[in-house]
């Protein structure tokens, strides 16, 4: 018996959320009745590493379905987010902040704001207890301070992504990085290496300047209380620690949290909103064809 067959209630749906990012594809399979009884059956992240996203998306979805024990034809809705417009087999699309908000709240019902930090962007979103987006701020066009930037730097430092966080926590004298441009910052960092600054101090310096930006985003949305870091950089414990340090230093009333599934927040949110739409559409007696936009 597959998971899809376990529940026959019309309100009980199985949906998939696919978050097509610029660095990674995230997929979540969610099952629930739309009334708070929701579980994530499976979550999968596959880093793109400059591969063509479409096949990776297929692959990630298959992997997630397998993990969840669900057949593809049992899905009631396939929702995409991020750059998910490229996914032709989607049922509908939701925008990133809408989905991260929903996913974040699913992971931790106490939070009232999220900071989503992905490969190319960072955004702070203020929400209410139903994941309604009350306000948001994004970093401007310039990509400095995003995950991609950190990734490039770490490649030059010969540090794998997983090591960034732990190394940064070893810093004793973080070296501030002043450049606003990611490309120029790269050179700054090379200068630092030549000056003999240790890798932990370099990383921590970058973390602090990035965290400073996120902190400003957060405070300008007027966020207070519990805040969830979502997106790929939530995995970076050094960055999260830096953010907490700044919060403390500034005496802000913010409680910065993460969740092991933070990186999946967008995918989870998409899956949940997909369920929401599917129920609405079912109620309205509408069928939906794949490819139709939300």
């Amino acid at each position, binding site marked *: 018996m597959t998971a899809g067959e376990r529940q026959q209630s019309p309100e009980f749906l199985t949906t998939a959320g696919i978050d097509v990012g610029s660095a990674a594809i995230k997929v979540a399979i969610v099952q629930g009745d739309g009334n708070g009884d929701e579980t994530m059956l499976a979550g999968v992240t596959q880093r793109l590493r400059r591969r063509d996203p479409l096949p990776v998306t297929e692959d990630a979805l298959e992997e997630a379905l397998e993990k969840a024990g669900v057949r593809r034809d049992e899905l009631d809705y396939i929702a995409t987010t991020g*750059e998910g417009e490229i996914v032709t087999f989607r049922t509908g699309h*939701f*925008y*990133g*902040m*809408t989905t991260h908000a929903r996913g974040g709240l699913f992971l931790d019902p106490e939070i009232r704001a999220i900071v989503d930090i992905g490969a190319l*962007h960072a955004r702070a979103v203020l929400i209410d207890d139903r994941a*309604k*987006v009350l306000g*948001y701020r*994004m970093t*401007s*066009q310039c990509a400095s301070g995003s995950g991609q930037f950190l990734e490039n730097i770490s490649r030059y430092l010969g540090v794998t992504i997983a090591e960034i966080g732990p190394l940064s926590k070893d810093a004793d004298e973080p070296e501030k990085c002043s450049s606003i441009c990611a490309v120029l910052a790269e050179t700054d960092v090379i200068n630092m290496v030549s000056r003999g600054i240790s890798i932990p101090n370099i990383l921590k310096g970058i973390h602090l300047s990035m965290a400073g930006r996120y902190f400003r985003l957060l405070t300008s949305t007027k966020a207070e209380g519990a805040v969830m870091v979502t997106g790929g950089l939530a995995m970076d414990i050094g960055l999260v620690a830096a953010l907490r340090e700044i919060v403390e230093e500034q005496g802000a009333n913010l409680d910065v949290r993460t969740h092991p599934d933070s990186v999946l927040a967008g995918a989870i949110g998409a899956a949940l909103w997909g369920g929401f739409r599917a129920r609405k559409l079912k109620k309205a007696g509408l069928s939906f064809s794949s490819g139709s936009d*939300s």
Partner: protein
Amino acid sequence: MEERMSTSASCLEGHAALVAEAEALWKDYSLTSVREWKKESGGIAIGYMPVYVPRELLWAQNALPVGILGGGDDLEIIRGDAYYQSYICHIPRSTIELGLNGSLDCLDGVLFPATCDVIRNLSGMWKMQFPDKLVRYLDVPQDFDPAMGGAFYRHELQEITESLPGIGGRSYDEDALRTAIQVYNESRQAVADLYDLRRREPWKIPTHELYVLLRAGMVLPPEEHTTMLRAYETAVSDDESRRPMDQARVLITGSFCEQPPLGLIKTLERAGCYIVDDDFVQVHRWIVGDIPVDGDPLGNLVTAYLENSIESPIRYIDDGVKGQGLVERVEHYGAEGVLFCAPSFCDPALLDQPMAVKAVEDAGIPWTAFKYSENSGQFQVIREQAGTFADSIKLWSGE
């Protein structure tokens, strides 16, 4: 001209053709239509920068007012960047580019209204670059007392009327100005009617069409433009295939000078927004209502400026009422939210924004903000933002 005539003949057949015609006029950087108008009418052409100049005055002296709204996203900037640092908005560099590549040769002069420091300084650059042309900085008053600001402004306008005959314009004549005022009253009314129709039925008038039509008004003689607008209005009113969709109604503000690329407007519409009011091509809407034709026409122009111009970041607004006009517009147009959409590095728009945001927030209106430049080609970030904004209005509106 031949070609334009033939398209305008077929334009009666539908809005698509009208929009295509308007777009062709807008995108013709070499201003063929203006050159031809000059040949036919024996008149002169005077360019003007945003935001506002009294076009009536020019038209009355047989000078075709030609709006210079930058080069948009089609123009390749080769020399323009040599004149401007990266932290200055985009419009002056494309304007210089157009000037240097000969596109604006058919203009006998250019007016630079007091919009901001960038346009102000551009007037001096133009003087140095084109010493043979009429180049005037038009200092519009920030004092709205008729005896002070009014007197000064009247004098500024008089100087313009006096300078035109020297470059081939007709000499100033009160009756001609009265006629011109009437012509522009009709133009303003036609624009106002379209905005009103879009307010009521935004699905009938997609903003990416309206915008193109407004831009055609930068080069067309006013009567022709009015005809075009009226024809479009009829065509879309009759088009029953344009049905409402589940979109959020938003108002755009901040784009009064450097104009957004068409792609940006389309992106917003695709991300789920109906734009129900905006400040694009603002010269068309700067003066609200008709300007009286009777009496002293020059005085009427001055009074209209002092008393009936709209609230704008480039006008000094007394403490206390800042942003009030915006909130009223939101109400009048039934917008569900405000998109602050300003050009990068635009001091007037961006410095104004926090004050406007405050007014909007105090009124409980949702808003979001982003920046663009006239040649932006990437809209993902904006799409995300506008999409989320529309998502949240759609998912949660009506509570």
